């Protein structure tokens, strides 16, 4: 059975292909259109997944969409009715969208699919609920035969948090918390209030939290959210404006936290950092309570996580260290793009009854599910764009790259299949020496064109991870935060401790300062030989030269740009930034060899996120 999964029309459109229960390919539309969070119909992603599976559109048995538009419309109508006459402005903005486009999603999908090939697509279209899609993306891709599945996000149709139980190829939603009570929207409210963009700035808030003190926890727990011992919760909606208004928070919220929301261009103060620390503390507390109560009530020993809140790797790390579950597995594409994969998996196993084969370490193929390019294709492209390069053997390429990294150079690293999900896991990455105290600043200011509150993620040989971090499990998808080991830490002087904000991050805190946060935490990616042999070989070569098996890994893009997809995207980004070396497959490009006329002003090409 060949099932095409789609997510589209809200944000992060994507397509995924599942054949007889096996994940073949998945990609986000933004990578092809170069438009961040592209919400359009994912025609490029569909073309790609079909070609990756060697299929034509007529081979597809079912198309699974990741949510149910009518249920979402029902929620909108009921919310507006319950808020009336307040909320008319929001209603007047939402309604035309629905009347013009969103109510017709089934027709729109049929029309677009008919453009590929004439067929009775209405009969082949199935719709999965939003949280079921998230849950399916986590459970069916996990290495577990039985597991509890916790999904948390902003909102889908009605559900904002759900508990499901998975056995073999069955998955049942057991309990849900409904809109407007949402952990994701609580976090987004603080994202908005601290001046970041809702739906993309949440990771900045998480990164900001270690700079602050959780001084506002009592205000949050006494006023905003009522959390029960089992982790279920209700928000007091008088502090929020997202049901009826066009902002996330209300004036009462401003009153509690001592002023209006920060404008995006205003400076960050200690108060904003304390707010970030406080909401992060509350989020972790709720997630921990949920996890503990699920463990005790279900008796399950395995936990799967998905939904946007599952990208909060600090909270995930706390759940892991709490020990309420023996094993946890987090879907790397936990946002809505992953819904495309979940819908296809749900349709395959639950709707069509395909038998499920549990695979170790999981069924995601390292999340390397996107396009790859053959050597001759890479060379043809590089010649066409005017690149000057040297083609090397594998051994020469690894040696050259490891030497350059050890010399403190910043490397664009483009290998194999593109990652699915928001993290670059070593196939579309910018790599640097984690030991270098300057690497943080170099990568941020000269290459990524941003200031970042979080240091870069460490990519570490899986077999050496415990030498650097207090982590006794694998973290292949950078979704677990773990402390840097005590013996690697460097004491900070009183003068350094007194520094403010991002200046704190520039103080080396360990022998791998480029990946150590101000609270000595790190967002770890463990690299296995069988999952990513090239990155593993590079790390091993780097270790041979330096004794260190950690590299700083960040996504291959600049601020506001989708991660590069093709060799041409990679060359463009290389020529528009201060990257020193670009390695595409076995082709190695040095910046000083390139024609300076090909340099482009890249910095202002993308809208800031």
């Amino acid at each position, binding site marked *: 059975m060949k099932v095409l999964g789609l997510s589209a029309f809200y944000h992060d459109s994507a397509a995924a292909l599942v054949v007889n229960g096996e994940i073949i390919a998945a990609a986000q539309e933004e990578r092809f259109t170069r438009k961040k969070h592209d919400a359009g119909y994912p025609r490029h992603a569909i073309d790609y997944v079909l070609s990756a599976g060697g299929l034509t559109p007529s081979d597809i048995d079912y198309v699974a969409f990741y949510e149910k538009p*009518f249920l979402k419309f029902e929620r*909108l109508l009921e919310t507006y*009715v319950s808020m009336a006459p307040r909320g008319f402005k929001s209603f007047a*903005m*939402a*309604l035309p*969208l629905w*009347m013009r486009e969103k109510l017709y999603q089934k027709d729109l999908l049929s029309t677009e699919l008919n453009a590929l090939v004439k067929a009775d697509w209405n009969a082949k279209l199935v719709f999965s609920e939003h949280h079921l899609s998230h849950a399916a993306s986590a459970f069916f891709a996990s290495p577990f035969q039985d597991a509890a599945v916790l999904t948390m996000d902003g*909102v889908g149709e009605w559900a904002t948090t759900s508990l499901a139980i998975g056995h073999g190829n069955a998955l049942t939603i057991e309990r849900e918390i409904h809109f407007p009570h949402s952990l994701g929207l609580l976090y987004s409210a603080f994202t908005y209030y601290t001046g970041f963009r809702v*739906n993309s700035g949440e990771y900045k808030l998480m990164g900001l939290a270690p700079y602050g003190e959780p001084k506002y926890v009592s205000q949050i727990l006494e006023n905003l959210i009522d959390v029960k011992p089992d982790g279920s919760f209700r928000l007091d909606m008088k502090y929020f404006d997202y049901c009826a208004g066009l902002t996330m928070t209300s004036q009462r919220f401003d009153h509690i936290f001592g002023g209006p929301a920060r404008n995006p261009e205003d400076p960050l103060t200690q108060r904003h950092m304390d707010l970030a620390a406080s909401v992060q503390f509350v989020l972790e507390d709720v997630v921990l309570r949920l996890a503990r109560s699920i463990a005790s009530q279900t008796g399950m020993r395995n936990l799967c996580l998905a939904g946007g809140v599952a990208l909060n790797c600090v909270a995930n790390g706390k759940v892991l260290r709490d020990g309420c579950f023996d094993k946890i597995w987090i879907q790397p594409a936990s946002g809505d793009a992953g819904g495309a994969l979940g819908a296809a998996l749900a349709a395959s196993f639950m709707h069509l009854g395909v038998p499920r084969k549990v695979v170790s370490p999981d069924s995601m193929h390292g999340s390397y599910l996107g396009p790859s390019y053959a050597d001759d294709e890479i060379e043809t492209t590089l010649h066409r764009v005017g690149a000057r390069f040297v083609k090397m053997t594998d051994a020469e390429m690894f040696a050259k790259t490891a030497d350059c990294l050890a010399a403190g150079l910043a490397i664009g690293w483009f290998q194999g299949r593109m990652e699915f999900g928001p993290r670059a896991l070593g196939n579309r990455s910018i790599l640097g020496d984690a030991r270098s105290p300057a690497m943080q600043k170099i990568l941020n200011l000269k290459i990524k064109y941003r200031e970042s509150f979080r240091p870069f993620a460490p990519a570490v040989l899986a077999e050496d991870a415990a030498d650097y971090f207090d982590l006794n499990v694998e973290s292949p998808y950078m979704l677990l935060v773990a402390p840097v080991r005590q013996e690697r830490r460097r004491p900070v002087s009183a003068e350094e401790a007194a520094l403010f904000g991002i200046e704190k991050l520039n103080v080396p805190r360990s022998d791998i300062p480029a990946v150590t946060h101000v609270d000595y935490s790190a967002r770890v990616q463990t690299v296995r030989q069988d999952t990513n042999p090239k990155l593993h070989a590079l790390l091993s070569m780097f270790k041979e030269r330096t004794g260190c098996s950690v590299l700083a890994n960040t996504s291959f893009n600049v601020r506001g740009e989708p991660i590069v997809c093709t060799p041409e995207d990679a060359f463009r980004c290389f020529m528009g930034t201060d990257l020193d070396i670009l390695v595409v497959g076995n082709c190695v490009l040095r910046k000083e060899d390139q024609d300076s006329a090909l340099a482009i002003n890249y910095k202002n090409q993308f809208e800031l996120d």
Partner: protein
Amino acid sequence: MFKILGEFLVFMKVRKKYWLFPIMIVTALLGGLILLTKGSAVAPFIYTLF
């Protein structure tokens, strides 16, 4: 439009929410009116909710 109304009727039957029908009709009329009086429909920034 009629096809959508028909599908929505089936939806309400399944969900047992017939009380949504008059609201749907009023909404359709209001939505049509808003559409006629506005050039374009742009999602506000909190697009998660819509």
